[in-house]
């Protein structure tokens, strides 16, 4: 059970990394909500996913 729980824990870090990569992709190649305002929103919305993926927070 402890091993399974640890695997699940690591999967969540992996999930953060995947979401971060997807958000970076959408930052540069999105079809909706163009413009500088949403460039900024995409940029700061990335922060928690990147920091979580890198085990910083």
């Amino acid at each position, binding site marked *: 059970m402890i091993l399974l729980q640890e695997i699940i824990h690591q999967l*969540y870090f992996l999930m953060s990394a995947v979401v971060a990569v997807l958000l970076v*992709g959408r930052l540069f190649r999105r079809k909706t*909500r163009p413009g500088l305002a949403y460039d*900024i929103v995409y940029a700061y919305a990335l922060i928690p*996913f990147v920091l*979580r993926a890198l085990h910083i927070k």
Partner: protein
Amino acid sequence: MSTYVTTSYTLAAMVAAFTLSSWRFKSPELAMVVTALVGALVAGLGFPAHLFVEGTFTFLDLAFIFITACVFMNAYSEVGAMNALVRAMVTRLSRWKWLLLMVLAALMLIPGALTGAGVVSVLVVGGLVAAVLRLMGLAEQRVAAFVFMLGILSAVAPPINVWAMLMAAGANMPYVGFDWVLLVPVLAVAAATVVYLGWGAVPQSKEAILAGLPPLSPKMTWWRAAVPLGILLALALASKYAAFAIPTLGFPLIFIVCTIATVAIDPERRPFGRWLAVTNDTVEQVFPLVATMVSVGVLVNILAATGVRGLIAISFVALPIVGIYATSLFVCPMAQGALGFGSAVILGTPLIFVFNAVGANVTVVAAAFSMLFALGDCLPPSRIVGRTAIETVGYKGTYASFLRATTVPWLIMGAVALAMLIFPGKVAFLVKY
């Protein structure tokens, strides 16, 4: 200068900043972060980077749920399973108009009830339900109102009610005993909504309704459509009732498992590139919601650091209890429109303490406030569910005409919530631990 005065002009500056930036940027998410920045500067905190970064994490778990739930539901729709489900309903129930409307309402309640986000219900099943509703003779504004109302009701429905969870967490009370006290009012309001919006509609024939839906893959059988939903139900129930026998998966991972199951049951065997495109589109579709969660987290953190959160909470909760009854139907939805789920933290938690002090059943009170907050999902600046509902159903009328169509069910929901708030003892029997 007293703390009260300092905090008051910080609040005034934040209100001004929010109004101006909402108008200038046309992005409620960015407006919230700019407001937080202005609040921190005016309160003399400078640029507290650590508070900003910590704030982005406040609702990260909810953001994960939104993303994974939408990926699952979009994958489920992509393979044609959702279409198969709706077609099966129409085929079996088209003779009974009210029963079909009630089942469509129940279908709308499920995704939001499982994820805690009304917008997930709207995004995932709203489009198909709207197609059926149109063919059942409902006017366009009523279709949008139906999708919106069931969307917000799905967010209130158990097992996941984010407002109640946040209020419970803030007030140090366990999130237990909410199932029936949330489900019964939600079903009552849903039934009233269906009756009001469906009244006078003249449905087309079964064949016409089926012809109006997207074509169904012949290989999509009922058991294929049932497998992912069965897994979702099994894992959700197991995590609730066998919590000590299985590892804690969490809703995001449960949705990922269901997505994998959906890909596995795909009769067309779509290539990896197609699934990547579905995932990318989903992330773009759900992004406003994710950005709102991140931005609200930042705003709530700065509101707390500057003392503005306390000022707002104390100003509202210092009202006599009758004043809270009188203003809740206005203040709570407005707070939700401005702060999203942050409203439950800023207003909801202090209110739980107030009602606890007068001996009310706080589980009922939290359930009632969650309904009142949900009503604000059609109000500016965020309008998150309202905006998504009209986009999903392709409503071409004005936003005001959409709001007019929702007025009666909106007021019914507000009246039910207020009745629960004023007479919590009368429905306390629904609180089962």
